[in-house]
């Protein structure tokens, strides 16, 4: 039965409210301002700051508006004498212990306490005793503290508990001795922890990298979209409004409200990656390698050199010898022009999928690997199955929605090769070796459907309690199953087979199969045709080119790369480096130059990094979002789309004749209308790999995912100190005679390296966990390939 609305009155204005709503919610909706500190629309109600006290008719005392449910005929007065008196009294109490350090406080100018003290406080202080001083908490490298300023609103405590999923902060002591602090002395952890900075109404929790570098009033705000994950969180870049020498520098990043995607949060990676933009590694001017020595040259020289080299290949009719690799973090416009340029030159060898191992089912995706359902609707799903994903680190804002779903009562089942900490209650999990994942899924499918023509229930899983649990859950979910194939599954050796069996699961049960991809704009890359088998807008390519992995295996003579760092970004860095070093010509258009790039590249074209060009990203649900350039590129760097246009002009190619990249955006936007992102798979006969072989599980830690975050110092400090160690399940280690902390020599292909090996019962039996994209391990082979232990030192 639908409850009827209640009529109430605030300041004499007649309003209608839903039963159970709080007074402050009604007032906010109607634009009547009530001062508050502890109340926040996204957090649970605490009613401990008392700032929102208002006079209510027939109530002997003023009542907190945030914790007073509306009742029929209620009359509240937000500006009456009694209300103002209580507000002034509360403000006076809050200011008793608040230091007068506004001039050095980073919150100054955007401080709720400052604003409310001016608008609702008394005009002079009657307090002449000593103020209290509280020692600071160490919350890690991202959040700085000045606990003396804390007014105990407990927003941060509630955030960590409800949104972050971990009880990390708490209030200790009572009354005047109350302190906010961590339960454990290990700082603030979690992928969303930076949001406490925005939540804190005073300057107690501030951004550490931003500390003391600017004031809130001197910034210019630029609309932007997260360039690190496929969710596409909306955010703002802040740069100095004054465009003197420091004008072209991003000073901080703040979330931009978008209820459909990121609500009001952004992940730490999005918030602090800007620190990498000002790295010393930035490419400032075009460079040419001549006789093994690098020389800074003019754009004209560099572009003529590139055009002449490409022209020579075109004249020799060897254009299929060009391999083009573009980063999935590029904008749609860059991807579109890049593939158009390469295809116009005459090569179909173009790809962005440098993290993928299995390309056999690339035709199964109708558009691109996508979330079939909008992210915002996930909070209502019944059963979510997450496979091959550490979504909490990789797509934090998507996982926030999943966590909300779990809090709303839905079940989350995880199938992974490493028991990641999801900081929310899982209703079940299966930690299984990557080589047995397929077998497990085949068994699940057979337990649910009896009429499948291929595969069979594996004897190993017939009575496995976890599989029975999952099957029971799947049956109970009654068609409302959301299967999410994660970023790590994308890199799996048998990804195509696993996807086909996941699709079967979806067909049997109903529900949806979603795919997550690495990089911010993999969807855009598929749509614009930066894939080997398709041209733009899902048209088949004139001739199927080589995919990313084949390009490297074939060892082509010419590579054209955009935004890639071979030693970090490729699933098999060793293969990539070898292929690039053997090539005759490697053209790298890049924002960052690494030592290794200087080794393998022949031409470096400095292009604008994210925040320095405008364009658009397509997120995993197929939503095109535009962003603007916030600052100027450093030195002579230019936006990549301009560079490709000039190369095309020099080569006499006319297909790239767009006057501005926004023309392309409009074309893309229209192509996205009314497109279904579903995919279709045929069941593939499972073939199981030899279980005696060890597979490596080596995904990119979230802060090593792309060139910008890798250069962001504050984010790098959040890496686990043991991240560069190999990890192995203790039971498996006993079989291999590896003791905890032993130094082992690991081999992949013909590369060998020594690592400290730790026992970790979170790793699946049969796997070795060794992260990719780190400085130490970048020379080992395929992140998801076979790995052998060749020697153990104790």
């Amino acid at each position, binding site marked *: 039965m639908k409850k009827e609305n209640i009529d109430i009155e605030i300041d004499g204005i007649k309003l209608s409210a839903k039963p159970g709503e709080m007074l402050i919610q009604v007032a906010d909706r109607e634009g009547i301002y009530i001062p508050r500190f502890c109340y926040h629309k996204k957090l649970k109600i605490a009613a401990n700051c008392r700032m929102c006290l208002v006079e209510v008719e027939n109530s002997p005392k003023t009542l907190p508006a945030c914790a007073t449910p509306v009742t029929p005929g209620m009359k509240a007065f937000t500006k009456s004498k009694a209300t103002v008196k209580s507000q002034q009294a509360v403000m006076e109490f809050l200011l008793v212990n608040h230091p007068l350090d*506004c*001039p*050095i406080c980073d919150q*100054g100018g955007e401080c709720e306490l400052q604003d409310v003290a001016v608008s609702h406080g008394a005009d002079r202080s009657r307090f002449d005793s000593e103020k209290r001083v509280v020692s600071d908490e160490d919350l890690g490298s991202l959040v700085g503290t000045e606990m003396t300023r804390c007014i105990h609103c407990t927003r941060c405590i509630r955030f960590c508990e409800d949104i972050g999923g971990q009880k990390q902060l708490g209030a200790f002591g009572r009354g005047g001795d109350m302190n906010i602090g961590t339960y454990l002395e290990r700082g603030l952890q979690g992928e969303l922890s930076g949001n406490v900075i925005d939540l804190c109404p005073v300057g107690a929790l501030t951004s550490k990298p931003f*500390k*003391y*570098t*600017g*004031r809130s*009033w*001197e910034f210019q705000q630029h609309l932007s979209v997260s360039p690190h994950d496929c969710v596409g969180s909306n955010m703002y870049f802040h740069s100095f409004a*004054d465009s*003197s020498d*420091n004008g072209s520098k991003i000073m901080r990043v703040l979330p931009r409200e978008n209820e459909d995607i990121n609500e009001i949060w952004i992940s730490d990676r999005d918030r602090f990656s800007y620190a990498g933009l000002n790295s010393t590694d930035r490419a400032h001017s075009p460079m040419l390698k001549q006789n093994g020595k690098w020389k800074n040259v003019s754009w004209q020289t560099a572009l003529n050199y590139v055009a002449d080299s490409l022209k020579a290949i075109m004249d020799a009719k060897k254009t299929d010898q060009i391999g083009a690799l573009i980063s999935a973090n590029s904008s749609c416009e860059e991807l579109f022009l890049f593939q158009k340029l390469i295809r116009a030159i005459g090569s179909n060898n173009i790809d962005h999928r440098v993290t993928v191992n299995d390309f056999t089912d690339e035709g199964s995706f109708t558009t691109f690997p996508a979330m079939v359902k909008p992210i915002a609707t996930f909070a209502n799903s019944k059963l979510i199955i997450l496979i091959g994903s550490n979504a909490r680190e990789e797509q934090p804002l998507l996982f926030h929605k999943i966590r909300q779903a779990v809090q709303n009562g839905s079940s989350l089942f995880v199938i992974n090769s490493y028991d990641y900490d999801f900081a929310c209650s899982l209703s079940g999990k299966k930690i299984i070796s990557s080589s047995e994942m397929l077998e497990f899924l085949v068994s699940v499918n057979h337990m649910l459907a009896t009429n499948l023509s291929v595969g069979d229930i594996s004897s190993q899983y017939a009575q496995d309690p976890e599989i029975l649990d999952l099957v029971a859950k799947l049956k109970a979910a009654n068609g409302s199953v959301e299967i999410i194939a994660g970023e790590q599954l994308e890199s799996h050796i048998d990804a195509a087979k696993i996807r086909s069996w996941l699709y079967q699961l979806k067909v049997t049960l109903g529900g949806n199969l979603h795919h997550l991809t690495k990089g911010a704009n993999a969807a855009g890359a598929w749509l614009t045709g930066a894939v080997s088998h398709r041209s733009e807008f899902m048209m088949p390519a004139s001739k199927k080119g080589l995919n990313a992995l084949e390009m490297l295996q074939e060892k082509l003579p010419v590579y054209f790369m955009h935004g890639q760092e071979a030693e970090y970004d490729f699933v098999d860095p060793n293969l990539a480096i070898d292929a690039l070093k053997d090539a005759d010509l490697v053209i790298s258009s890049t924002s960052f130059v690494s030592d290794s790039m200087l080794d393998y590249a022949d031409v470096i074209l400095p292009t604008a990094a994210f925040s320095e060009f405008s364009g658009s990203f397509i997120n995993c649900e197929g939503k095109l979002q535009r962003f603007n350039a916030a600052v100027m590129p450093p030195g002579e760097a230019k936006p990549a789309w301009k560079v490709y246009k000039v190369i095309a002009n020099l080569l006499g190619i006319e297909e790239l004749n767009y006057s501005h990249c926004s023309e392309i955006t409009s074309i893309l936007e229209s192509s996205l209308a009314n497109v279904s992102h579903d995919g279709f798979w045929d069941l593939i006969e499972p073939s199981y790999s030899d279980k005696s072989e060890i597979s490596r599980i080596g995904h990119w830690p979230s802060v090593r995912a792309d060139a910008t975050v890798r250069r962001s110092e504050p984010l790098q400090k959040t890496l686990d100190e043991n991240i560069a160690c190999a990890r192995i399940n203790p039971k498996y280690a006993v079989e291999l005679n590896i003791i905890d902390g032993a130094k082992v020599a690991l081999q992949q292909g013909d590369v060998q390296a020594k690592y400290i090996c730790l026992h970790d019962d979170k790793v699946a039996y049969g796997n070795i966990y060794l992260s990719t994209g780190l400085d130490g391990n970048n020379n080992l082979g395929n992140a998801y390939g076979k790995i052998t232990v060749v020697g153990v030192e104790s």
Partner: protein
Amino acid sequence: MQLSQDFIISFVILSLLFFVAMILWFLLAPRLGFKDLIKRFVLWDILCGLKITGIEFFKRKKTVQFPEEFTPKSARFRGLLALRRYPNGEERCIACKLCEAVCPALAIKIESEVRSDETRRTTRFDIDAFKCIHCGLCEQACPVDSIVLTDESNYTLDRKTQIMDKETLLAIGDYCEDKIASNRAEDDDYR
């Protein structure tokens, strides 16, 4: 001889013209009383003016022999800008940027950082002296009495020195500190 003859002729002509003018004036001018007529003939108004001259001639002289001598100034005189230090030598400025925000001429440019001792300090404090209009709002805004307008008015700046950087401003502050302190003490009751 020829000359004196010319002189006599011109004198006679001028005298004749004068007499004609006098007669015309007597005929045409409004009637004056006898007293006024006498005043006019003895040049009375000029004597009155000369009386002031005479008095001033014997009064004490007010001319200041600049640059050997200076005129006195108010303690609130708004002259050359300076940055002050605490008695222990620590710069006062905490990089709150309030002066930058309040400056109506946009003459101040500040950049800040965390200094090694975790305090908030400026890395750059530039004032464009050509833009500065000496309004004193920066001095009023400063929470730590760091930026001040000294009573120093005798200085020159050119296109090379118009941007006063942090070192310059602190040096001015050091040089003028005694005067700044005494001026502020004098004006203290009214702040």
